[in-house]
């Protein structure tokens, strides 16, 4: 399958994708056919299993490869990967992500939100698969494609929609916008517009967790941080610098790469010398895992192990999720460069359809139950839009709030008083 994007489209590639020049670490990667490509399907990428996470503790001898959930596993053992309850929870989260993003597109074209809006359609399995395993005190750091990460972590749909509409009831009081979703309560640490700049912040949050345990002696502090970012970011210096520091200090963090193969219009293959991102983990002394990011159950299995590692103090993990965005990079992107056949291929692997199929085939849920969930989510999203519509826009007085945590930072005015004491400040009409 997936012949449309075989060598024909990529003859311009200056180098072969066969790992002819790999080191001994990569001896486990065997391509089924010489012309098969990394992207396309995991069936082509045959990875010999090194038994789930057979990882030496010593850095440098950690092997990259393991596609954890093998199809034969479900054949050999009758036990299911999830319970009914978990299945429904996952399904609901996937549908929420999809419905919310679809509504965002509608609202954008109706002129309710502006600027750069980056939708997550198609990638829901990664967010749901990872974040639903977290506790409230665990932290999530994302990029500008952050609506669904915030929703999965527990930020109410109302708060996210209001933020997108720029209303005061938004999670960031309307001051952040689509690319800056933050929630102190749910430990969503952003929402960053520049790629890569969130990864050090995530590393810092993980550092705090370790600090709390070892310096402040909060013995039960096992908070984990997840950093989500894309394939484009994996060529950025901050990515590598943080892989190094996280492995060096064994920070409780999981680096989750959402490899959707495209950085706006730049194909991952055209930008990266070695497109196998998971291989970069062992170079820094941490396991690197590749997983099918369109399958929420596979992602969840990998996530369990990676998050478990971090919680036990064993250090970071790099997880590369092969996924795809069904829409353009942002709502302003005409999305002309991607091959329709590629899009069709991934559309056929829609994570929601896949989970639905799994739940029904394994008798975990009925069509009716799933329909109920879909209806419920529709209502949640409608309610979010209504709430956002009816919420007030920020008053002028909000302009100067939150610039400083301590507004004395605006300084002392000519009259000797702190400028923040000037009534024009609270009105928002003072000039700073």
């Amino acid at each position, binding site marked *: 399958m997936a012949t449309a994007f075989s060598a024909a489209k990529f003859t311009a590639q200056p180098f072969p994708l066969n790992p002819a020049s790999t080191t001994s670490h990569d001896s486990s990667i065997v391509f089924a056919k010489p012309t098969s490509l990394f992207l396309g399907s995991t069936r082509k990428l045959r990875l010999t299993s090194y038994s789930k996470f057979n990882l030496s503790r010593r850095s440098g001898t950690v092997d990259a490869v393991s596609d954890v959930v093998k199809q034969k596993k479900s054949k050999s053992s009758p036990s299911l990967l999830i319970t009914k309850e978990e299945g429904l929870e996952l399904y609901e989260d996937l549908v929420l992500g999809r419905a919310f993003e679809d509504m965002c597109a509608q609202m954008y074209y109706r002129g309710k939100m502006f600027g750069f809006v980056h939708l997550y359609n198609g990638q829901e399995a990664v967010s749901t698969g990872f974040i639903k395993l977290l506790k409230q005190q665990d932290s999530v*750091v994302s990029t500008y494609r952050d609506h669904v990460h915030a929703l999965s972590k527990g930020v109410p749909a109302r708060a996210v929609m209001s933020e997108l509409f720029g209303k005061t009831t938004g*999670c*960031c*009081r*309307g*001051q*952040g*916008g689509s690319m*800056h979703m*933050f*929630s*102190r309560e749910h430990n969503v*640490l*952003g*929402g*960053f*517009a*520049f790629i890569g*700049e969130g*990864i*050090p*912040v*995530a*590393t*810092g*949050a993980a*550092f*705090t*967790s*370790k*600090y*709390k345990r*070892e*310096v*402040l002696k909060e013995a039960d502090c096992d908070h984990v941080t997840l950093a989500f970012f894309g394939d484009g970011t994996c060529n950025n*210096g*901050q990515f590598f*610098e*943080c892989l*190094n*520091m996280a492995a*060096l200090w064994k920070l409780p963090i999981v680096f989750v790469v959402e490899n959707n193969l495209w950085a706006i219009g730049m194909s991952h293959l055209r930008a990266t010398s070695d497109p196998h991102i998971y291989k970069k983990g062992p170079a820094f002394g941490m396991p690197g895992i590749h997983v099918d990011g369109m399958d929420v159950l596979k992602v969840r299995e990998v996530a369990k192990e990676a998050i478990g590692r971090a919680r036990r103090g064993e250090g970071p993990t790099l997880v590369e999720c092969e996924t795809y965005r069904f829409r353009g990079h942002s709502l302003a992107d005409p999305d002309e460069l991607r091959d329709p056949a590629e899009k069709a291929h991934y559309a056929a692997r829609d994570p929601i359809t896949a989970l639905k199929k799994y739940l029904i085939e394994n008798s975990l849920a009925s069509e009716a139950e799933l329909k109920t969930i879909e209806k419920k989510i529709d209502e949640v999203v409608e309610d979010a839009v209504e709430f956002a519509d009816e919420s007030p826009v920020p008053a002028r007085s909000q302009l100067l*709030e*939150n*610039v*400083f*945590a*301590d507004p*004395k*930072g*605006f*300084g*002392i*005015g*000519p*009259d*000797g*008083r*702190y*400028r923040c004491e000037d009534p024009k400040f609270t009105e928002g009409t003072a000039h700073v």
Partner: protein
Amino acid sequence: MAAIFQGVGAAAPLSSSLSNSFDSNKSVFSPRRSFSVRKRASFAVVRSDGIVNLNPNGRSAQRLVSNAVATKADGPAASSSSKPGHELLLFEALQEGLEEEMERDPRVCVMGEDVGHYGGSYKVTKGLAKRFGDLRVLDTPIAENSFTGMGIGAAMTGLRPVIEGMNMGFLLLAFNQISNNCGMLHYTSGGQFTIPVVIRGPGGVGRQLGAEHSQRLESYFQSIPGIQMVACSTPYNAKGLMKAAIRSENPVILFEHVLLYNLKERIPDEDYICNLEEAEMVRPGEHVTILTYSRMRYHVMQAAKTLVNKGYDPEVIDIRSLKPFDLHTIGNSVKKTHRVLIVEECMRTGGIGASLTAAITENFNDYLDAPIMCLSSQDVPTPYAGTLEEVTVVQPAQIVTAVEQLCQ
């Protein structure tokens, strides 16, 4: 490499006559005025002009502007205050401030290159790793952008990091994190997360360190909204500003100077901080207001010696707070002297002096008898050759000439 300056040079003989009045304000419980004690405050704010304020947030109706420099090493004043004080060098004062804050609050930690085992490239963190451990005084790999970002993430989740740039110039690599996250994150998160970091390091023109190690980053950072910038110049204000910066909920960039680390001064034993937003009156005067900061303060004081001999009476203010400007102290001075000279080490273009000129013109134009003069470093990459380096920065002779010109 660093020149040794004793005390503050030119100001010493001028201060002795004022030292008595200065002393009486030095005792901690001076009954100058009634005040309410902040319940949470466990420290006294000794302001730059010597007034002890147990209500640091209250605004004083009257201010005694005396010679505000802390007692000099050779002054008799120190011995007559309630405690004798102790003498130390500027880098030791910074270390003392940092150590005291780390003792006081276990969330305060240090991150930077060579801050731990090496003790800091300028010894500001000497001994701290032995005392507090390798995690609290973290030796980072050479990755400024990332470890600054890491400090910011740690601050968002509850810690209070002090991030050191081995040389301020290296923080150019951290500009992404300083501008986007440090400055803006509190705002874009709608106030949900605070970033109580202190970013500090030595900058300025040293002794033939070459262009890249002689940078003045205050001008590059000044436009970033959401940060405060302070520059220390004496052991007294170094310790005070370090402590205030650590205690502040805002992100603060503390600029130190490579050539000032070995300045010696006697500082009080008791706990004190210096207000982050206030300027320091170095030498009161009548004829002209000279605004300066960091190392140029000493060039100004040296020029002041010459000026006094020539019959001028300059008022010297160390602005200390580079962002925001203390328009009250500065304004009072302008209203008194009507002439302003700014002496800075920043480049001519877009420097602190340029902003200060604009701020004074906007607010106090009516009080000026002459256009504001601004002496800055030349817009030249600092040359290695000593003779050339000397002329890129402002020298005392130029300051004397400028004052003479202003006061014509």
